[in-house]
């Protein structure tokens, strides 16, 4: 497509220039013609003016003749004869001139002849008259003039001259008009032509300009490309890259080639590449054969021996690619070679590493056969080395390995093994004795002279798997145990409720119906029974509440701790009002929590703060502060009784109380529940206090992710 455009553009430019030139020529032609015509017209105009002038002279001349004759006749003075002769001459001359000037105009020619005749006649008559005067005196001459045709002739003459003048004037008008038209045409043609010419020139010029800049860009890009190519080729040190001519002449090469051959560029430039071959190869004609094959099939790969500058031999693998010009002629060859000797060195190193590896290492070729293994592999699989070498890897790893090696239509081996890099794959392996064991393999591909090989590091993971199973079992057991415990607590308290209810209810009924009706002892006994029963009921309810923290706990979600506190305060409304407590709080953050349990937590802590008070107004303040990372430290501070430090741990125990029953109600489970709730949330709870100086309960909770 680009070529077509270029072609069209070239043609267009040529065409444009051609057109411009043509137009200019045309314009010039027009101009020339116009000028010529103009010149002619000008000449004609001048010509006409000349004729008119002459005709006028004729008139004057005739007048002069008449008047000079009259003068002579009147005076008889010879002086008048001079002008007469002059006028007569003038008549003749001018008539001739007019005749010559109007040769193209037959009308005028006839007129002039007539004129001349008349003039001649007139002059003859005049001569006669003059003679008469001279000889016979004035009267005779006057008589002759009066009777003669003189006047008539003059009038006739004047009329003809007039006619001629009119004719000339008519021609003059025509010619002037012509001249004008011609001038106008010229003007227009000049303007248009010039304009068109300019336009085309500008267009062509712009097109050329654009082409130029495009060409410049292309050239720049080409130069850039060449630069990059050069850099690339020079940069490749591992490979020798050469450009050869059709006969094998070395045209260029890269630093890699220098390194490989040990020669400098100056030593090899222009020489044939066969100089690197061994003498034997050269005598067998190998270099030429290689070039021929490459030229035939376009590309040829060979592995062979070369000789360095210092005489040492080395193996290389080379690819020859034939390069042709658009017409298909062989331009030369591009050659890429790799020194295989280095590979062999690293190969030895590699074998060493493999052998020493702590895991079983197995190297497999593309057909799935084991080409290399180490002593660990022997031990793990229970085979001798020679029993495995050359065998299909499926003998030891039946499923999962060989399939991954296969280069199929969808991907090359490189891609296939690339997919497996770094990922451990769990498979089942089979020992020589047929027993199976779980393994984890890690693959890595390896390029070698024999093609792509895949190295597998094989680890026996039977121990790991067992451990995993054991772990899962233990976790299951733990879960079950927890569940059972939860269930037990629940069932225990639940089933205990019913008989307890009976005891409590009926002792109360007894008390109601028979108080004061039996003796005082009976009253006291019943009172103890009632009391005991109701305490037991409360204990069981608390136990149930405690067990529910675990069994009825919900997922930890983003919760507004402020909302939870508000709910707790709502639940404590009665207690707050009764004690006129003042509960304040700072803004509280969102946390990860079970909302109901968080409410319970606040309720217990604030409830305690209100309950364990001196007389006076209980003040409670709830606040929260970040503690380093993502946690929040909550504080519930009160101005209550305070706690003796020796009890700081105990109060969080189950059913632990620090006060007598008649001092403060409660079973002592509140803080145990708080502790369980906080620990379920992954935090911990503690107290700071001094007796008589109030207490500060603190607990830490994880903040929620949403806001930091």
């Amino acid at each position: 497509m680009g070529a077509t455009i270029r072609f069209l553009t070239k043609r267009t430019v040529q065409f444009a220039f051609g057109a411009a030139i043509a137009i200019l020529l045309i314009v010039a032609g027009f101009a020339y013609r116009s000028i010529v015509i103009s010149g002619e017209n000008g000449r004609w105009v001048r010509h006409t003016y000349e004729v008119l002038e002459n005709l006028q002279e004729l008139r004057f001349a005739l007048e002069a003749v008449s008047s000079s004759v009259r003068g002579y006749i009147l005076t008889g003075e010879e002086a008048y004869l001079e002008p007469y002769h002059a006028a007569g001459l003038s008549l003749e001359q001018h008539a001739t001139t007019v005749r010559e000037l109007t040769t193209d105009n037959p009308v005028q020619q006839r007129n002039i002849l007539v004129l001349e005749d008349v003039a001649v006649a007139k002059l003859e008559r005049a001569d006669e008259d003059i003679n008469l005067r001279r000889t016979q005196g004035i009267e005779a001459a006057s008589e002759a003039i009066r009777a003669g045709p003189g006047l008539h002739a003059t009038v006739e003459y004047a009329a003809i001259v007039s006619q001629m003048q009119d004719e000339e004037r008519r021609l003059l008008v025509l010619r002037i008009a012509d001249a004008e038209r011609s001038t106008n045409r010229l003007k227009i043609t000049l303007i248009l032509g010039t304009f068109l010419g300019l336009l085309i020139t500008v267009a062509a010029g712009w097109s050329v300009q654009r082409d130029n800049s495009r060409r410049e860009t292309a050239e720049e890009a080409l130069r850039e490309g060449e630069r990059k190519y050069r850099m690339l080729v020079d940069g490749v040190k591992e490979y020798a890259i050469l450009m050869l001519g059709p006969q094998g002449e070395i045209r260029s090469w890269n630093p890699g080639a220098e390194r490989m051959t040990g020669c400098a560029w100056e030593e090899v430039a222009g020489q044939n590449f066969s100089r690197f071959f061994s003498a034997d190869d050269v005598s067998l004609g190998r270099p030429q054969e290689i070039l021929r094959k490459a030229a035939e099939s376009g590309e040829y790969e060979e592995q062979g021996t070369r000789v360095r500058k210092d005489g040492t031999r080395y193996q290389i693998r080379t690819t020859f690619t034939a390069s042709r010009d658009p017409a298909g002629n062989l331009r030369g060859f591009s050659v890429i070679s790799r020194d295989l000797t280095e590979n062999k060195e690293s190969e030895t190193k590699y074998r060493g590493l493999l052998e020493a590896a702590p895991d079983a290492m197995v190297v497999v070729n593309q057909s799935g056969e084991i080409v290399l293994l180490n002593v660990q592999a022997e031990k793990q699989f229970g085979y001798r080395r020679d029993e495995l070498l050359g065998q299909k890897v499926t003998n030891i790893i039946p499923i999962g390995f060989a399939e991954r090696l296969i280069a199929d239509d969808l991907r090359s081996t490189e891609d296939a093994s690339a997919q497996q890099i770094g990922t451990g794959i769990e498979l089942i392996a089979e020992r020589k004795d047929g027993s199976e064991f779980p393994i984890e393999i890690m693959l890595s591909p390896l390029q070698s002279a024999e093609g792509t090989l895949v190295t597998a590091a094989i680890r026996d993971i039977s121990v790991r798997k067992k451990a995993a199973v054991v772990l899962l079992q233990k976790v299951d057991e733990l879960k079950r145990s927890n569940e059972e415990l939860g269930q037990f607590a629940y069932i225990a308290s639940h089933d205990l409720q019913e008989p307890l209810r009976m005891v409590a209810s009926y002792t109360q009924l007894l008390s109601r119906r028979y108080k004061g009706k039996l003796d005082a002892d009976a009253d006291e006994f019943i009172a103890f029974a009632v009391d005991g029963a109701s305490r037991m009921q409360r204990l069981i309810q608390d136990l149930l509440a405690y067990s529910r923290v675990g069994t009825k706990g919900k997922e930890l979600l983003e919760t507004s701790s402020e909302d939870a506190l508000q709910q707790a305060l709502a639940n404590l409304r009665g207690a707050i009002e009764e004690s006129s407590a003042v509960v304040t709080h700072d803004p509280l953050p969102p946390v990860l929590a079970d909302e109901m349990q968080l409410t319970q937590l606040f309720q217990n802590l604030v409830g305690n703060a209100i309950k364990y008070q001196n007389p006076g107004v209980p003040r409670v303040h709830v606040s929260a502060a970040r503690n380093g990372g993502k946690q929040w430290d909550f504080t519930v501070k009160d101005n209550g009784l305070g706690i003796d430090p020796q009890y700081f741990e105990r109060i969080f125990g189950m059913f632990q109380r620090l006060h007598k029953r008649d001092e403060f109600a409660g079973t002592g489970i509140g803080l145990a529940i708080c502790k369980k709730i906080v620990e379920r949330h992954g935090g911990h709870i503690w107290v700071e206090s001094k007796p008589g100086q109030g207490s500060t309960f603190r607990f830490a909770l994880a903040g929620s992710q949403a806001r930091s």
Partner: protein
Amino acid sequence: MTKEVLLVEDSPGDVRLTREALRGVDASVHLHVAIDGVEAMAFLNREGAYANAPRPDFILLDLNLPKMDGREVLARIKTDEKLRMIPTVILTTSDAETDVSNSYRLQANCYVTKPVQLEEFEALMKNITDFWLRKVKLPQQARH
């Protein structure tokens, strides 16, 4: 008019308590008692010893019963054309959410948890009786 109430309750203590509470509220109530699910069904279906039993206007049903438990009794009542229109209130110690929702799903008319304290229990019975036997319109039952 006398109201016939069937109480299905296995704890004699609770039965007595209920009777006491009812008496205090509405002496015209006839309280019938079945101590397990089987007896309850026999009463409702007028089988055997219960051939002449009246159809109750109202049933108080505990969930945890021996032999046939209350959940099954509920299911049977509410799938029986002749019995399903009898308002059946579950009165039980369980406050488990599953029990509550299952009972409503089986179309129990109402679910009430038995309180632990005597006084509260008495208040509850008063409320139940007041509401269901005085305020609510019960369907007329064909007596025999």
